[in-house]
């Protein structure tokens, strides 16, 4: 039986970013079908039993000092990729699956060397991450290398697929969209009550990409009409101070910055809010949308949010149209029926995004080569 070599970056419980959650949920299912080697950067403390083989790539030797400290992220990625190529165990591998630009250099070189089919997944593109402000050319080049080398490209939404088609050289027929699942256990709220809570929530990093600025703009427009409402921004990020200066008039009176929140606190915030707003400038998928929906919370999301394309029971706006976002918020505050219907139908809709389906669809891609 041929093996699958997965080039990864993170894995819960060590790092629980979106990519890590995807990696764990996908490969614990696929491990029943294939022998899987999962390559990861060296971590000091992983001693959990996974159903796949962990291959830790120690690339600290590439630096004269500890990699955690001073090198910039790009250099760390290069070092990781270099070490990956050197230490790659070719034995019996039938397919390589590489996740995001942080593994694409290695993926491309390994493919060149051994001529094994390559599948790559874009969980995001440099255009998303930069929020279209100064995308790094050197990273875009690496993404293009990945595209050029890949036999199949997986994107997490048609939205991301369109970004690839628009900004990179790549063929439409090579791209497959596969949606992520949502972790029900963490966010499911039984029987949310839809009484008015006068609270609206934003949850995400405070970076231009996610559009917290537009959340605050919409908040101010609502507050100019109704001072009873609380707007909560949960999450950290480099924009914090700038955002606070925009919110100034209402800061700590109606607009609150929660900073980092645990998953438990996130669930609590979802459950206690009348709406979750994600005015993302560019969001390849938007798992928080599904999480909030599973908690029964009505959603206002931007058109540039990948998962929105697959959802009916949400309200959609342009990210910059804070007039419209404010109007949606006011309607939600005003009409319980709107909160309830969106919340309940939305919960049901979101629950259909399960990781079994993601695994099935990924298997379908693998089947082309194995």
């Amino acid at each position, binding site marked *: 039986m041929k093996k699958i070599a997965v080039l990864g970056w993170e894995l819960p419980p060590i790092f629980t970013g979106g990519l890590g959650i995807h990696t764990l949920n996908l490969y614990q299912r696929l491990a029943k079908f294939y022998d899987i080697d999962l390559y990861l950067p060296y971590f000091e403390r992983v001693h959990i039993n996974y159903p796949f083989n962990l291959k830790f790539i120690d690339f600290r030797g590439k630096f004269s000092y500890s990699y955690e400290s001073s090198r910039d992220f790009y250099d760390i990625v290069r070092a990781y990729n270099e070490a990956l190529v050197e230490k790659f165990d070719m034995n019996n591998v039938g397919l390589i699956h590489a996740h995001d630009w942080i593994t694409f250099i290695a993926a491309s070189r390994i493919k060149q060397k051994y001529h094994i089919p390559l599948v790559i997944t874009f969980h995001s593109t440099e255009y998303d991450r930069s929020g279209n402000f100064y995308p790094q050319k050197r990273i875009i080049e690496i993404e293009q290398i990945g595209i050029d080398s890949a036999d199949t490209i997986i994107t997490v939404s048609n939205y991301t697929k369109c970004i690839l088609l628009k900004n990179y050289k790549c063929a439409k027929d090579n791209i497959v969209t596969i949606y992520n699942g949502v972790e029900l256990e963490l966010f499911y709220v039984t029987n949310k009550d839809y009484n008015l809570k006068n609270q609206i929530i934003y949850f995400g990093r405070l970076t231009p990409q996610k559009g917290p600025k537009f959340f605050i703009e919409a908040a101010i427009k609502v507050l100019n009409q109704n001072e009873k409402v609380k707007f909560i921004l949960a999450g950290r990020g480099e924009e914090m101070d700038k955002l606070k200066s925009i919110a100034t008039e209402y800061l700590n009176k109606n607009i609150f910055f929660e900073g980092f929140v645990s998953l438990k606190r996130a669930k609590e915030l979802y459950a206690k809010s009348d709406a979750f707003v994600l005015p993302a400038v560019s969001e390849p998928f938007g798992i928080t949308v599904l999480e909030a929906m599973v908690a029964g919370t009505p959603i206002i999301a931007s058109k540039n949010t990948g998962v929105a394309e697959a959802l009916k029971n949400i309200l959609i706006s342009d990210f910059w149209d804070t*007039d*419209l976002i404010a*109007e949606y918020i006011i*309607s939600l505050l*005003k009409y319980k*029926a*709107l909160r309830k*219907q*969106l919340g309940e139908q939305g919960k049901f809709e979101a629950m259909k995004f399960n990781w079994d389906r993601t695994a099935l669809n990924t298997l379908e891609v693998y089947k082309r080569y194995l």
Partner: protein
Amino acid sequence: MKKIIFFFEVHQPRRIRPYRRYEIGKAHEYFWHDKNKEILSRIISKSYIPMTKFLIENNFPCSISISGILLEQLIELNSPILDLFKDYFKSGLGELVGETYYHSLASIWDDEEFSNQIKFQEETLIKIFGIKPVTFRNTELIYSDHISEVVKKLGYKNILAEGTDEVISKYNPNYKYTSVSNLNLFLRNYRLSDDISFRFSNTTWNEYPLFADKYAKWIHLTPGEVINLFMDYETFGEHQWKETGIFEFMKHLPKELRKYGIELSTINSFAESSGSKGQISIQKIISWADTERDLSAWLGNDLQKEAFEFMRSLKGNKNMHVWRSLQTSDHFYYMSTKHFSDQEVHEYFNPYKSPYLAFIYYTNILEDFQRTYC
């Protein structure tokens, strides 16, 4: 001698426009003139005109109701269809059927409001066609004993209702019955009606393609005295495109029926010539909508109920015509969130795509209406 009756519902709403909150207190024009005109023009040319010409040219007898809210729009559009309708009814082949002017749900919450809207429709029909109807068809066949009582008091002789599964489990729908209010009661034969209006062009239907001879045979084999085929007028040319052969089917049908000695009739002429099979009481409200055949297409979810209550609360205002135009059942239909196949039907007809937007625009408008006219 068995008869078949075709009854057609001719109705298009005045759809409201995507009305934003910032307009509240400022803009009082609620209806989506461009969209309504666009849709209506398409329907007129694809369906109303060819179908009405067909009826005239083929001397095809049938019963027809045309909502007042549609007539208004036809007049505004200055469309030739209005003259065609007049021609058809002048020929004496057709029967003009009454309803509420606004194609509303008034029957389920306010007898007085309901009666007023019926009377207004009568006046309109008399003004345009010179005809006072004797047969009544309520919005989407919404019916109950109580509704028939109100209609009876207004002087009608005949009334239509859906032959729901529950009703036809006890009564063969293919007879004339009597309502508890003592009107002649006609029950729609939904299977044979749907064969034409829904399934006609469905290539995965095992009876596809449906030709007039086969259909005439089915009618022949169906026990009873009268087969009530009630459907939207848009069936012809809009839901079932011309290319499906629907007009050819209708054209050949009368002569295929004649082979079995079956004739076409209108509701009232059948009613006058035929006895009642018995009395039927229907206490719970039924309709022809969705698979549920109840009110759930319009008042099935919280959005619909909250919007409906809001609308009702504005009774006694200074702009009754607009308020009543906001009562048209379609506005609530667009807010439906039903699952399954019905959802697709709802979506097909929903100009806002989203039931949530339908609700938001509608309540925005009511807020303005309340401020402006109450």
